[in-house]
């Protein structure tokens, strides 16, 4: 046997330091290939600005829709939280409580810090109103005694938990019963819950759509580079090596889509800002639309990037294995 010039052929006399250097080389080369793949993938994405822009827009719109709806919900919650009368407590007084006692209770309540307003509904007036509205005037007239109690309608001050105030008021001497009218608050809350779930469901479907779109885009990229993949595999490229540029392609599409989504949401907010301001002014409110902010925008970009990677991973694991040298 002749002496061979190839380093791998002879017996290895390299020590530990040499193999460590080799390991370092491998790490450097691995890192180099990552940055090379990232740059090359970005170049390929930018090489076809038309189709890339289209992909970015599709992903951007799909991500912007749930993001914008979420912003709308957040704003709606802020508005409803600012409403002056979120709930009303009806205080039904004892039958024995006289009109004077009711009036003094009402003025006492108005003086409390946790009460925004208190209105007295006199039982005589209430009976007259009932007789008039119900058409039972004859029946009412035949009654010996007014069956209705005096009523004080209490609106809690902002920031006061209505149920806390209710339990404080029910123990007052003249009060027979304190009924918290929460029905419409609950209705609103339920509506908000429902909307939140709808947005969540929509977001789930659209995110799935984004992953599928990206998966398909990457599948096409794989098809376009089929020959190259075969050659790389022939000269000993591992699956990870072949996979890497496509994962970066997915990442770039996703990140671009996330950026577009953030821009779309910002544009929508800018578009709506003035009419909302005008409307708020008409209601003597200083309400202002809150946007998604820098963190929200970054989250959108991050989400886009993650979805891009996921879609690329799905496409790559489905299609790369099928491409073998023939």
């Amino acid at each position, binding site marked *: *046997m*002749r*002496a*061979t*010039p*190839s*380093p*791998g*052929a002879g017996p290895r006399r390299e020590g530990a330091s040499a193999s460590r250097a080799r390991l370092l*080389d*491998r790490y*450097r*080369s*691995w890192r*180099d*290939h990552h940055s*090379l793949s990232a740059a090359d993938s970005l170049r390929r994405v930018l090489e076809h600005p038309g189709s890339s822009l289209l992909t970015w827009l599709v992903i951007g719109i799909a991500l912007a829709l749930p993001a914008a709806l979420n912003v709308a919900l957040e704003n709606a919650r802020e508005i409803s939280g600012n409403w002056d009368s979120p709930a009303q407590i009806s205080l039904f007084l004892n039958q024995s409580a006289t009109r004077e006692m009711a009036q003094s209770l009402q003025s006492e309540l108005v003086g409390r810090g946790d009460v925004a307003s208190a209105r007295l509904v006199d039982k005589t007036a209430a009976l007259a109103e009932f007789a008039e509205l119900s058409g039972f005037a004859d029946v009412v007239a035949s009654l010996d005694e007014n069956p209705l109690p005096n009523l004080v309608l209490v609106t809690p001050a902002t920031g006061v938990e209505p149920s806390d105030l209710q339990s404080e008021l029910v123990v007052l001497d003249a009060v027979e019963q304190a009924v918290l009218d929460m029905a419409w608050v609950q209705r609103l809350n339920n509506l908000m819950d429902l909307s939140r779930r709808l947005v969540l469901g929509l977001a789930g479907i659209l995110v799935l759509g984004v992953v599928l779109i990206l998966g398909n885009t990457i599948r096409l990229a794989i098809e376009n580079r089929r*020959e*190259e993949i*075969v*050659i*790389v*595999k*022939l*000269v*000993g*490229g*591992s*699956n990870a*090596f072949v996979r890497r540029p496509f994962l970066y392609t997915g990442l770039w599409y996703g990140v671009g889509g996330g950026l577009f989504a953030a821009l779309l949401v910002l544009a929508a907010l800018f578009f709506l800002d003035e009419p909302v301001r005008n409307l708020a002014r008409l209601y003597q409110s200083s309400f202002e639309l809150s946007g998604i902010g820098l963190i929200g925008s970054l989250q959108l970009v991050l989400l886009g990037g993650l979805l891009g990677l996921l879609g690329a991973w799905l496409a790559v694991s489905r299609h790369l294995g099928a491409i*073998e*040298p*023939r």
Partner: protein
Amino acid sequence: MISFDRVSKRYEEGHDALREISVEITRDELVFLTGHSGAGKSTLLRLIMLMDRPTRGKVTVDGQDLAKIASRAIPRHRRNIGVVFQNHQLLHDRSVFDNVALPLIIAGYDHREVARRARAALDKVGLLERERALPITLSGGEQQRVGIARAVVGRPRILLADEPTGNLDPALSAEIMQLFEAFNQVGVTVLIASHDLALISRLQHRIITLRDGRLLGAAA
């Protein structure tokens, strides 16, 4: 270096590409593999490259039983073998240099080492001054030399070639064969599939002839 022990390969459609092939190629040898198209030359090379697995029998390369190499380890196995194709299989959107450097990048060499070795390989095939050119601007013979540079750049111990002179005129073919002989001189085991009998019979090397998947005779 390469040994086939009663190897048969039957493709799924029922075609017997190789039947009971037993052949031994020793270290530092240069061997020609010949036969009509469809005789099984390419299949034999594919089995060495692990692009296919034999239906029966045992293939050993550099002391390693190929049946024991799992799918995951195939890339590593291929890095130890240089391959030259009839249709060159070059990346047409990359420069000559990038094409030659590809196996080194895959193997994980430092980029300075990559540049040094790729240039050395290009120099050996006489194309150093064309390193920045795109393959498409080269002639057929030059493209094949790029393919050879890529095959030897990783300093493999085995070099396979499938009809490397298939599209070349006799003068260029002889040049390419000289290149293979030069690599064989420095200790690379070379196996060349070719049906160009006129050319290979002039060169003094062992010729293995296949017919319908069977071994005809191995003359020295």
